[in-house]
C-alpha cells in the first residue's frame, strides 16, 4: 500500500526516524564509551539547593506546572517529573522531604505515583504521605497563586519550577526574592522562559528545560538522549545548510 505524504510529513517522518535511530545507537554506545558532557548550570544549581536544604533541615518545594492534559494537551508539561524522582531519592528519609505541587490532574496523579514508587523502592511504603505531592490550583493562574502562598513558609529552603507555567510566575519569583529563597526555573514555553529572567533565579532555557535531572542522575537513558539530541542538532544544521545551497543553485524544487 503506497502512502502519499506531503513534503512536511516526509520531513517529519525523516526527523522522527533519525531521532529514534540516534537514540538507539547512543543507548548501545553509552555502555561502551564514556562520553564527556559539559557542566550544566541547572545541575549545579539543583545540587547546591539539595545541599542547602539538607544542611538547614528544610524542604525543597517543586512546582510541576499547570499543563499535561488540562490547559492544553502536551507532554512538555511533564518535564518536572524526572526532577521530582531524582530529588525525592535524596530527601526520602529527611524530616522535610521534597514537597511538590501540580496544577493539572494527570500531573498530580503521576506525581503521586512517583512519590509512592520512591518510598516503595526504598522499602519504606509506610512513610508515604499523599500530602507531599499535592494538587495546588486547577488553572494556569491558580497553579501560580497556590504556590505563591505556600513558598512563604519558613520551613522552605528553595523553590524549583519545572513544567509549564504562565508568565505570572514573575509573582512567584518576586515572592521567593522577598523570602530570600533560591529558585531554579525550567519552563518549556518561550514566554515562561522570558519571565524566568526576572529576579535571581537560575533560569534554564531552550532544550535544557528537558534535562533538569538528566545530568543529576547520570542515568544511561538521560545521557544517551542528550547525545542523540546533539547528533540530531548537527544533522538538522548540516541538512539546512546543504538544502539552502542546493535550493539557491536550483537543484532542489
Amino acid at each position: 500500500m503506497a502512502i502519499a505524504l506531503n513534503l512536511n510529513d516526509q520531513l517529519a517522518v525523516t526527523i522522527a526516524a533519525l531521532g529514534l535511530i540516534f537514540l538507539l545507537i547512543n543507548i548501545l554506545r553509552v555502555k561502551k564509551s564514556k562520553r564527556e558532557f559539559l557542566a550544566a548550570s541547572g545541575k549545579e544549581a539543583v545540587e547546591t539547593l539539595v545541599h542547602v536544604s539538607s544542611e538547614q533541615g528544610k524542604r525543597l518545594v517543586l512546582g510541576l506546572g499547570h499543563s499535561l492534559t488540562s490547559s492544553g494537551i502536551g507532554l512538555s508539561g511533564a518535564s518536572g517529573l524526572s526532577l521530582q524522582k531524582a530529588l525525592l531519592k535524596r530527601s526520602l528519609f529527611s524530616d522535610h522531604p521534597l514537597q511538590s505541587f501540580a496544577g493539572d490532574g494527570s500531573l498530580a496523579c503521576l506525581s503521586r505515583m512517583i512519590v509512592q514508587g520512591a518510598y516503595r523502592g526504598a522499602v519504606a511504603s509506610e512513610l508515604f504521605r499523599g500530602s507531599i505531592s499535592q494538587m495546588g490550583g486547577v488553572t494556569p493562574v491558580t497553579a501560580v497563586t497556590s504556590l505563591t502562598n505556600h513558598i512563604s513558609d519558613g520551613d522552605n529552603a528553595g523553590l524549583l519550577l519545572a513544567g509549564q507555567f504562565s508568565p505570572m510566575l514573575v509573582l512567584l519569583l518576586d515572592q521567593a526574592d522577598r523570602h530570600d529563597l533560591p529558585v531554579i526555573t525550567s519552563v518549556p514555553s518561550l514566554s515562561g522562559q522570558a519571565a524566568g529572567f526576572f529576579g535571581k533565579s537560575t533560569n534554564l532555557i531552550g532544550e535544557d528545560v528537558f534535562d533538569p535531572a538528566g545530568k543529576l542522575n547520570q542515568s544511561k537513558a538521560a545521557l544517551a538522549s542528550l547525545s542523540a539530541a546533539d547528533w540530531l542538532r548537527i544533522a538538522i544544521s548540516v541538512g539546512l545548510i546543504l538544502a539552502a545551497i542546493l535550493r539557491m543553485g536550483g537543484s532542489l524544487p
Partner: protein
Amino acid sequence: MSLSDLIVMILGVALTIMVFSYILGDRLFFGIATHILIGVSAGFLTLVTIQKVILPLLVAPLSSPAAPGFLLALVPMTLSILLILMLFRRGVQAGAIPLALLSGVLAALAIIGVTRGTLAPQLLSIFSRFDPAQLIQEAEPQWSSLFEAMMILLGVISVLFVFHHQGKTKTGGVVRPVFLEGIGSIGQIFIGITFGALFVGLFSTALIALINSLSDIITFLKLWF
C-alpha cells in the same frame, strides 16, 4: 445600575484591593482572594468536567447496554476505577496502567506534534527563504533578501549550538571546541533579543491589566464621591 450589578462591582473592587495588598507585604488578604479563586475555579471546572466529559463520554454509553458503544465504554470505566483507587494510600499503584496509557498517547502525540507541527514547518520556512525566485528578480540579485535569508539560517544554527552538550576534557573541566563556543556566543545574542522582546510583550499585557483594574476602582469611587 441594578442591585446585583452594584454587588458585583463592590465584590470586584474588594477582591482587587485584596490582591493589591500583596504590594504591602500582606499575606492574609492576598491569600484569601487567591484561595477564593482556587476554590471557585476548582468547583467550576469540576462541574464542567462532569457535564461535558464524564456524562456524555462515559456515563451515556454505559447506560444503554444494547448500544454499540457499551463494550468500548467498559475499558475507560475499568481504567477510571483504577484511577479512583489512587485516592487511597494502598491503591496508588492501581493507577499505573491508566497513567501508562495516558503517557503513551501523550508521547505519541508529542512526536507527531513536534515533528509535523514544529520541526518540519520551521525548517521548511527557513528553506523557502532561499527560493531563487525571491533572491533574483529581473536578473538582478536581491542582496537584502539574501542577507536576511543568510542571517536567519546562521542565526538559527547558532542558537541551536548554544545547547550542544558534549565536549572534550581539558584542565578545569569539559569544554566545547572553540568554534562551537564562538557560534554559541552569537546564538546567545539572538536568544537575548528574543527574550527581551517577549519580556516587553509580557510587561505591556500586564500593564493593560493594571490599567483595567485601576480604572475599575476609579469608576467605583466616582459612584460615591
